[in-house]
């Protein structure tokens, strides 16, 4: 990895140290210092000349990030890409800073299953109410089925898929409370 080894030396060390502190605090010592450095380098590579402008927050904006997701990770679903961006953008400033970048990718690369699941949950929980509702699931799967001309109700299949998924999720005991459908929850 070449790139900008000396562009922001002070920044780098700052991020590295804070991140390592942070990660120790959160019990993720899985990302090594070296890996963090590499991620930081990658970040500046991607941000490129945008950083050169003064007075702007250094980071990837929504479009740039979506571009990366599309080109590098082959994601195609608009909705998911948007949600992934939100997942990365912890402070909701519409821009992914270097800390957010490293934090996000560390989950992707070295996160435990639980961390990854938590991340996924956040992606799917559109309104952030700590529940994945049928409606949210429906939005996510809206485009997943080819429309069959013979079909009377094109949404029927998707509805069904939502049911299957939610059933499956509540079967897997993990975070049972969280995954519960709010409607069911109300009924209880």
């Amino acid at each position: 990895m070449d790139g900008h080894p000396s562009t922001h030396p002070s920044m780098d060390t700052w991020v590295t140290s804070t991140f390592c502190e942070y990660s120790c605090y959160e019990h993720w010592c899985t990302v090594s210092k070296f890996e963090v450095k590499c991620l930081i380098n990658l970040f500046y590579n991607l941000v490129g000349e945008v950083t050169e402008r003064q007075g702007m927050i250094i980071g990837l904006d929504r479009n740039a990030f979506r571009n990366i997701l599309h080109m590098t990770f082959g994601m195609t679903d608009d909705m998911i890409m948007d949600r992934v961006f939100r997942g990365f953008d912890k402070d909701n400033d519409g821009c992914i800073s270097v800390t957010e970048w490293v934090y996000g990718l560390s989950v992707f690369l070295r996160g435990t299953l639980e961390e990854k699941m938590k991340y996924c949950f956040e992606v799917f929980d559109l309104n952030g109410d700590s529940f994945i509702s049928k409606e949210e699931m429906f939005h996510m799967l809206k485009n997943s089925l080819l429309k069959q001309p013979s079909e009377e109700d094109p949404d029927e299949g998707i509805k069904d898929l939502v049911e299957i998924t939610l059933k499956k999720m509540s079967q897997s005991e993990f975070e049972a409370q969280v995954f519960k459908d709010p409607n069911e929850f109300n009924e209880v």
Partner: protein
Amino acid sequence: MGVALTRSAQWTAAGHGAKTLEVTPLNEAIVKEIIMFVESFIYKYPQEANYVFVEPLEWKTNLDPSAFGSGYAVSGTTVKSEEVDKNGEPLLYLSVPQIKIRSFGQLSRMLYIAKNMKLKEAQACIEDDDSESEIKMKIALQLKQLDLHLLNHSLKHISLEIRLNPGTVKNDIELLKQFSGKGKQTVLESIEYTSDYEFSNGCRAPPWRQIKGEICYVLVKPHDAETLCVTCSKEGVFLNGGKTDDEGQINYERKGEIYKDLVTLLKEKSAIFSENMSKQEIKFSEQPQKDQPNEAPKEEVAITHKASVTSRKSTQEKNRINLGRSQLTKRLEPSLNWRTSVSSKESRNTLRDTQVEKHGGKLEKSRSSVSPGRAQLIRKSVEKIEEIISDSSSESEEDEEQPDHRQEANADLPSEYWQIQKLVKYLKGGNQTATVIALCSMKDFNLAQETCQLAIRDVGGLEVLINLLETDEVKCKIGSLKILKEISHNPQIRRNIVDLGGLPVMVNILDSPHKSLKCLAAETIANVAKFRRARRVVRRHGGITKLVALLDCGKHSGEPAQSSLYETRDVEVARCGALALWSCSKSYANKEAIRKAGGIPLLARLLKTSHENMLIPVVGTLQECASEENYRAAIKAERIIENLVKNLNSENEQLQEHCAMAIYQCAEDEETRDLVRLHGGLKPLASLLNNTDNKERLAAVTGAIWKCSISKENVTKFREYKAIETLVGLLTDQPEEVLVNVVGALGECCQEHENRVIIRRCGGIQPLVNLLVGINQALLVNVTKAVGACAVEPESMMIIDRLDGVRLLWSLLKNPHPDVKASAAWALCPCIQNAKDAGEMVRSFVGGLELVVNLLKSDNKEVLASVCAVITNIAKDQENLAVITDHGVVPLLSKLANTNNDKLRRHLAETISRCCMWGRNRVAFGEHKAVAPLVRYLKSNDTNVHRATAQALYQLSEDADNCVTMHENGAVKLLLDMVGSPDEELQEAAAGCISNIRRLALAIEKARYS
């Protein structure tokens, strides 16, 4: 509007209560659409517009009463429409801000009045759509669904009704024609159409009758009834009024019950038909049902019903065929002994050959219209021949074509069926996410259950699953393979997977860098490759090499303590590879391919691991392959025996079984037997004998003991471990596979005096003699051998005689199989030798002597040698010798004289010398030219042959003419050499013979000079 509004419209808050529509483009579009519909309603459907709602639509409006004009009575804050219903209630009633509307007409007018505020009004109306109306809407929807459901249901029922069509009828008749004719074996005397003309739709009935659904009329003459005139119609088959004599017209009137098809009708009408039909069905193999699919393109009528009818029919036929065949093989092959399977294979071979010929003939007849289906058929039959050639001897019954019992069409389909159908639909039309969800959900079904397996197939899921394997999406492939792995436990599914070309794809996946993918693919191949055609496909597509390459992954698995996560995965890959190889190794050609791909050293290395899961497939593969000579040599060279012996001590029964099996296969070789002993394998084998619950393992263990006990040292060891006593205990209440091996082992042990005593003391002779009445050929060979070995002991002989064992042995001489005959004859020798009053005993068997003499006409050298030995013993009794001479033993023996087989030569010579003792047999042998060939025996390398021959020649030389013949053939020089032999008997006989020849010469000289 319920569905659209609940699903598509975007509400601000989920759940019940006061909800409002969000201001979004989608919602706007929906509302606009509604407005357009309502506005135009009054023009389009004026009558319906006047229909009065039961409940008014009610909402809070922003409309000003003043906006209402003509047709409305406005008074302050209220507006009433002039239009009223039957009870005089106005259809529109506005009392600011509440508005109630009770018909579409008023609704339209209201919107017209509202003008710019239309949108708001409509939205308000929709939002206020209260819960009561919601429930009503739901009920309406439910009713609609019920209606649809009923419709589907009735459709299903209609489609289940079996209806005939010209194609099936024609097939039936053609088929019956093939089996009709004179003679008792045929099913019918004749079957003919009444009309030769066939319409383009396949019917033969005149058009005015076709309207009534009649297809054709057939004249059937069964063996045991009058000619029947039968109408075949779409509804079924029934007897009609018959041909009227004068004009040859048919009386179309129905005269009997309607049957579902021709065969059923005839079975009802003719007893001989149904009897012979069941016989024929066994014979005519799969041909008819294979033909049927080919007719498909010709049919234009009732195609929908055809599928179910043909599949059911073919199912029935196939079932019967299979039944017949399995009976056939059962009779020939009751045990898993490999030698018997050859004969059943041959019979199968001929069966298939005839079938292939039929297909071939068909091709030539109809070359102009070779449909793709037919071409495929021919290709398949060619493949079959090939497969038969490469067929392995160790293939077992499970490979047989399984009956393809599709779900009976009228059986109630379980709920899983519909659920799976839905999932397959999502698989077909979904993106990756939907596919993965559907796969996961499908995996949650109980895939071990046959209904689910068949449901997946019947709704076309297999095609999709196999298709998924060709995508780049790893998740989808994994999911698909996981399902395929489970459902391929079903034999029918296996066949379908192969037919759909699933194997080559899986073989390609073996190259994937994903280890879990490799594993799953290999495991699925292991399941699918349980029958010949599949194994061949795997080999053809280079699967064997790739599978062998998988074995290489477990390189570092020697030290399980250090194995990391990656290494455990490697081990898993190797295990799956071994599993697949195990399945594949049941075909001969695959065994070769595994060897050529360098599989043996890899297997040997994997054998050093301690993972049971790994060891079972590895040992299983080795055990399969050990049937080949090449492998046995390699197994010895790779020092595999040591590890096999080690694993005999494992806890796992399956592993023990396969190890024992492998030893059984390999221990044909003497060095291997010694290796087993040196590595201490005999003790675990002996101790495994005590556990008799697992019959398969017991069979393998006893087999290994049998083969090992061919070596004397091993027998001594077994005696030390008290294995012989245990073996005797196993002579009763065991399956034949076990018995064959137990008796074989005892037969080997009996070669030693001490062991014979043990067997007698343990009461082993009685069960052995009891086994002589069996029918299992392998078992008989071993039992006769064991009984014969016991008979060497005079005390044992007494017991055998008392149990009538000699008579049983004697009757086995009539057994059709030469191995049994020979073995029985060998066993008879010691019996006759050691029996008291042997001569009397032999004479007591009515027709026994004639039987023995006639066996000299056999072609089998072993039988001949053994029978000669028996005759030698019989001939010790003068009276019996006289009898066999009368039966013409001399010419028969003389005819055998020209042979190169030393064993036969020896026994033949012994017999001849015995038989010379009676009457003018010596001269007779000379007359039948037996002497000259005998002289040539002296040139053999076998001392036993020399001794027997010299004795025979000594006896024959009592006759002057024979002496001349011997002299002419240069016997003297050869005999002179024999005189110098260390064998005293040989010396004596040779010297005696020379002295006879010499004496004759002297006598001649004396006569000449005196």
